[in-house]
């Protein structure tokens, strides 16, 4: 298990390096940051001066190296708008984003896993059809529209919950539903498929044949084995969840990293965009490492599989 962990860590570091490189490439190759940051009527002298301050006049490899050093030491520059280190601003808001993403995740798992199991156990019957109808519609609904509709119905029409901001538990409910639904939809589908596959296995038939109660068969034998693909999806989808958080935060004025990054684009606060994207992407990489480790714990075969 230790060896497996070390191997996964090495892989993660490599991916993290790739992510940093991708951030660098996306930010440097798609245009001139200096031109983006300055207002349209800036003079050429101002442009040259800013390029020099940002180090954009140096050759690309040098820029890349200093970007790497900055990323490792957490130096993304000073926010123009807030006159504070960009990373600090982002880190201040990270808890809010993680809180939202985590709430959505829990909500999705609590709803979708039982739904998928019920659907699988009632294959072809009404419960299955309804569960899958929910899943298919959920997958086709954009986050932001879901959010607007929830605000319209629950907050404006019914007046039950606040429409924006963060603070009490009540503030968390609508954003979490908004963010969690899409995920719940794909999770329910996958849980159903995984359960159906496992339920057809010999060991399940054996478990039933030796007279174990159906509950034990389902929970102890089937569910544990069906959980590997489900856990993988949870890990993979956490990134989508972080991306979705950007949108959800914008709708509900949730003070998280995503909203900060989007707002910073419009005011050309470039260091903050950079730090925000970087921190969120790296959180995702860290989560995936956790999932990989959990994965090796759930299914010992995996530990040895890719060692060869």
């Amino acid at each position, binding site marked *: 298990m230790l060896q497996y962990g070390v191997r996964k860590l090495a892989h993660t570091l490599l991916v993290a390096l*790739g992510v940093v490189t991708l951030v660098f490439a996306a930010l*440097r190759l798609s245009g001139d940051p200096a031109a983006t940051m300055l207002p349209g009527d800036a003079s050429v002298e101002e442009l040259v001066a800013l390029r020099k301050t940002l180090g954009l006049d140096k050759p690309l490899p040098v820029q890349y190296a200093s970007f790497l050093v900055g990323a490792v030491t957490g130096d993304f520059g000073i926010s123009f708008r807030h006159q504070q280190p960009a990373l600090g601003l982002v880190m201040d808001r990270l808890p809010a984003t993680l809180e939202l993403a985590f709430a959505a995740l829990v909500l999705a798992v609590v709803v979708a896993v039982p739904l998928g199991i019920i659907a699988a156990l009632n294959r072809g019957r009404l419960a299955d059809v309804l569960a899958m109808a929910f899943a298919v519609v959920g997958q*086709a609904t*954009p986050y*932001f*529209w879901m959010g607007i509709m929830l605000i*319209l119905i629950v907050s404006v029409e019914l007046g039950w919950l606040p429409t924006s901001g963060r603070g009490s538990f009540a503030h968390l409910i609508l954003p979490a539903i908004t963010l969690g639904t899409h995920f719940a939809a794909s999770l329910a*589908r996958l849980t159903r498929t995984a359960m159906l596959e496992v339920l057809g296995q010999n060991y399940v038939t054996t478990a039933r044949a030796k007279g174990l109660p159906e509950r034990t068969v389902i929970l102890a034998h089937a569910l544990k084995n069906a959980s590997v693909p489900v856990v993988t999806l949870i890990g993979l989808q956490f990134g989508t969840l972080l991306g979705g958080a950007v949108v959800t935060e914008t709708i509900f004025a949730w003070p998280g990293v995503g909203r900060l990054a989007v707002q910073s*684009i419009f005011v050309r606060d470039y260091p903050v965009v*950079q730090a925000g994207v970087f921190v969120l992407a790296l959180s995702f990489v860290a989560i995936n490492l956790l999932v990989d480790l959990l994965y090796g714990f759930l299914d010992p075969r995996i530990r040895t599989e890719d060692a060869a």
Partner: protein
Amino acid sequence: MRRLRWYLLLPAVPVIVAVAAALLAPWVAPSSPTSGNLAARLRPPAWVQGGSVQRLLGTDLLGRDLLSRLIWGARISLLIALAATVLGAVVGSLIGLVSGYYRGRVDRVVTKLIDVQLAFPFVLLAIAVIAVAGASIPVLVIVLAIGSWVGHARIIRGLVLSLRERDYVQAARALGARTPRILFRHLLPEILSVILILATFDVGRIIILESTLSFLGLGVQPPTPSWGSDLRDAAAYVRQAWWTSVFPGLAIMVVVLGVNLVGDALRDALDPRTQSRARA
């Protein structure tokens, strides 16, 4: 190939309607999508008190006819989705083909690249690129294609990896067929149905992503009508005019639902093997 049952084609109806609306927009839209009548702003839909049949779905804040904007918006949204899907599918499939066929160093680089990109939430990547490149339709298409090539590359690579060992491929090679001929004449036809299925699911995903970016203000810019950017404006006055938020979103949902269900039907009909792989 299993028989395609007629009722499986029902979900195609909203897709066909949307495509028809997009193609025929200048002729079927009741009025201009961009010029509004400020005297007639925020009029409700026809069946609500105060609505009129001339403005079936009501008007927005600038007095523009909502139905006309939806119809013209279909044109922009579908065009972007189609362009990005095709670009992503072509690039991704080519990379997958080459990587799976050559294996070795090329393959190692490609798989690492795929790993890295999968470790990067798409919306964030889009934000990073658009922050610098600026929001415009060509940038949007490229960004969306960057978001979709990976799925193709990964699955096509896996398929080609096993297909290249088949007897008929070995035979073609033994007969002296050159690599491009093997790739495009022998391997490509085998995987075409998978590419088609993947691309169908991509259309749905990309419509949602495009509308999401446009909603954030990073995609299609006003006054160009698009479902996502219309919702951006509408969200601000959802209290005063629910219809401006409800209809564009409904359009996105119904079309994406249709595309996804068509994709399901296609997959079941063409390729039962990919059943659990193409979508999770």
